[in-house]
């Protein structure tokens, strides 16, 4: 057959020089924004790095950072995946730890941590079953659990309580000048890194990018999505524990406000709401970014409504910037 003798040379692709947009990671715009914000903060408060206030900022930002990280697997799993329940779930877990377990005299940190993670996993299994097996749209399924957890937390803890924070000392201190809270976040990021180095990482990206392609190729789409919610539940459990540590107590109403900020943080960090693209590094940076904005505006004495407006504006900017980034990255696109 004459056609088979056609040279393969014609098939050789144009050698493409990688543009800057293809080599730089997805979270680069968020990282740049974070640096700018840190500089602004330092100008406004020159003692920021010297007086140790940045360690404090990181401490207070940690629940939001971890919840933003928890959004990553569900957002990446596509199909409208997101977890609205993370805020109230963390709030409920904080109430269980600070309002129930610690008053009962359970003060061993590893036990408390295990309890928090255990409840987080239960929450993840519940959300995952609703979404992956019963095919309830994620926004509805997790709105339902959002409401349930909020109610349960109030039932459990009518008024805020304080706890003995002496057992949490390690979290408030630093090792070699690095706040231990940063280590916690780094360890969580490393755990995520381990997870995505297994087959799960590519399965998650495939399911999130094109679930039909994933399904026909033989990927267990239901299983991948189920696991995504369980991983989010794990993060929520950790965040619940951190709430108790950071607040030095438990408050049933504190969780709800975290949900939308966590989703906003993940989006700020370059995680795609459409699935397939993202990672916890971006989400963590996004979480810190939101907290820095809050910190800066509060320090300058701006009223709370300005804060709200600022979040909205930043979120829109983030979506535009990340969309533009993605466009530049794929420019020249498909031929």
């Amino acid at each position, binding site marked *: *057959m*004459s*056609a*088979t003798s*056609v040279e*393969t040379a*014609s*098939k*050789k*692709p144009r050698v*493409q020089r990688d543009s800057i947009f*293809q080599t730089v990671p997805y979270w680069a715009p968020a990282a740049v924004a974070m640096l700018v914000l840190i500089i602004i903060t330092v100008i406004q408060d020159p003692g920021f790095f010297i007086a140790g206030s940045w360690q404090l900022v990181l401490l207070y930002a940690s629940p939001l950072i971890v919840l933003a990280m928890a959004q990553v697997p569900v957002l990446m799993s596509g199909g409208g995946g997101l977890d609205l329940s993370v805020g109230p779930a963390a709030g409920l877990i904080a109430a269980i730890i600070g309002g129930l377990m610690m008053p009962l005299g359970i003060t061993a940190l590893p036990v408390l941590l295990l309890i928090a993670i255990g409840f987080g996993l239960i929450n993840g299994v519940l959300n995952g079953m609703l979404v992956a097996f019963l095919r309830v749209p994620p926004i509805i399924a997790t709105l339902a659990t959002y409401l349930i957890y909020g109610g349960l937390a109030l039932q459990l803890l009518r008024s805020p309580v304080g706890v003995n924070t002496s057992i949490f000392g390690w979290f408030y201190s630093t090792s070699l000048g690095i706040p231990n809270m940063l280590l916690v976040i780094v360890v969580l990021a490393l755990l995520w890194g381990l997870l995505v180095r*297994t*087959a*799960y990482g*590519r*399965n998650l*990206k*495939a399911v*999130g*990018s*094109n679930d*039909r*392609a*994933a*399904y*026909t*190729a*033989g*990927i*267990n789409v239901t*299983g*991948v999505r189920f*696991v995504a919610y369980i991983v989010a539940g794990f993060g929520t459990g950790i965040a619940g524990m951190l709430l108790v540590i950071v607040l030095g107590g438990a408050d049933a109403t504190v969780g709800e406000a975290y949900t939308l900020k966590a989703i906003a943080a993940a989006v700020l960090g370059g995680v795609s709401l459409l*699935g*397939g*693209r993202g990672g916890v590094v971006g989400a963590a940076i996004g979480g810190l970014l939101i907290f820095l904005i809050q910190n800066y505006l509060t320090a300058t004495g701006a009223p709370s409504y300005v804060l709200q407006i600022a979040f909205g504006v930043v979120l829109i900017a983030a979506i535009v910037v990340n969309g533009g980034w993605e466009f530049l*990255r*794929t420019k*020249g*696109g*498909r*031929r």
Partner: protein
Amino acid sequence: MKDEMRMSETKRDDYLVSLLVEAHRYGNTLAIQQCSIEILPGEVHGLVGENGSGKSTIVKLLSGIIKPTSGSLMVSGEELVFANPSDAQRHGINTVFQETLISDGNTAVENVFLGVDGLFKRAKKDSVEREKAIEFAERLGYDASLFRRPLHTMSVADRQVLTLIRSLARPWKLLILDEATSALDIQTRDRLFDIIKEYKHEGRSVLFVSHRMDELEILIDRATVQRSGRLIGVVDKAEATPERLISMMSGDLHSSNYVHQHAQQTEGVVPETKVSLRDVVLVPGAAAFDLDVRSGEILGIAGLEGQGGSSLAETIAGVRLPASGQVALVAAPGGEDRSIRSQRHAFKHGIAYVPAKRQEEGLFAPLSVAQNFIISTIESISMLGFFRKKKLEAATWVYMDKLSVRPRDTAVPVSQLSGGNAQKVLIGRWLNAKPSVIVLNDPLRGVDVGTKRQFYRLITDLAAEGVSVVMLSTEIEELLLISDRIAVCRQSSVARVLEGEARTQQEILSAMFGVLEMAADQPEGDFA
């Protein structure tokens, strides 16, 4: 070619794959009934049929995408039920689909090995995967550089090569190519065909679904022909000539019985051109064509799915603009022709468009019949911006009666109407605008026979009143029954326009499948 005696004695166990389906339904729609497909080890088996013949249902059943509602599947003598595509793959059935199913979030190598791993456990090391992917890429005429490129720089052909390698690089006994070759470039396709011949000698089989008669002719050993969801027959290579396959697909025995009712009615009237298409190119790279839509005619549009029929209907109605060329409204003598700029513009000048997906693109399911009916001509029943209910009722009832919509109640939500009645409401909406051209994009899909008859009446009446009707249909019989001229689309262009005596099922199918071009275009000994 095959020994007739041996064939007739083949037991079900001797087949590599044997699928018998009594009936398969999607909701209330019967997709296939009394179908079977039996594939021998080491053969390339063709599966042919027009649109709606049930080919894709067979492929989906074999590849585990849908679960059978009745019937039985045997693979190498073992009775099986596939729960999902990974089940089918485990039993050695890999499928390459027409759509290039690629995940843009993964790398090229990852795309090849999607689904091979467990949820967490990797099946192969990166280096092994890479090596294997490159090996198959080379066999298809590509090289390792394919896997160094970002996915978003890849053409559809390159992406399809990845899905092809995906199916080749994991173990298989039966490879299903579901119109998978249409996205490939010719060199790759030829290499694939060579590889298939090698695999055949190893005793592996291929199910080749294609509407390319030339490809079928050179590749297949046997073919199963389906029509309207039923098995028509199985033919050997010797019998599987394009002419024979087409006549089996078309069931030409009854096609001559159709009487063209409409042509007689309009004879003697000099038709004027309403819309003219000049040098129109529907999608970049397709062939240019001219076409006129004349007053008082029914212009049918035929073509296999994805061959440009729907694009042509949309282009005439201004829903989409052609890649190049001119689509113009022809004015009365003395007036000036206007090129169509948009659907809104076309509608303002008398071109109505009834979309194909009536639920998604046409109807507002929760709104009432009357509201759905009036939505495009709301000015006609409002006064100073206020809605005049009585006028709405009156206007609606004219068409409720004319189209005999059931139930006879204008207040029920459209979502409660049957498919046929919902379609009537949609068509009534556009008729109320008194268009001079009405473009119907596959209006009768999934509509029952009784309603169809009413539609034929309605459409021929409209044409008799001087309205130009453009109607796309996937059913050739339907087009033969009512249309004056039939534009047959192929490769995103109008391949032929058939009128008068030339409008036979055979001619339409030949044009649809490009049988005539084949003989003319084919260079010696090649099948490009």
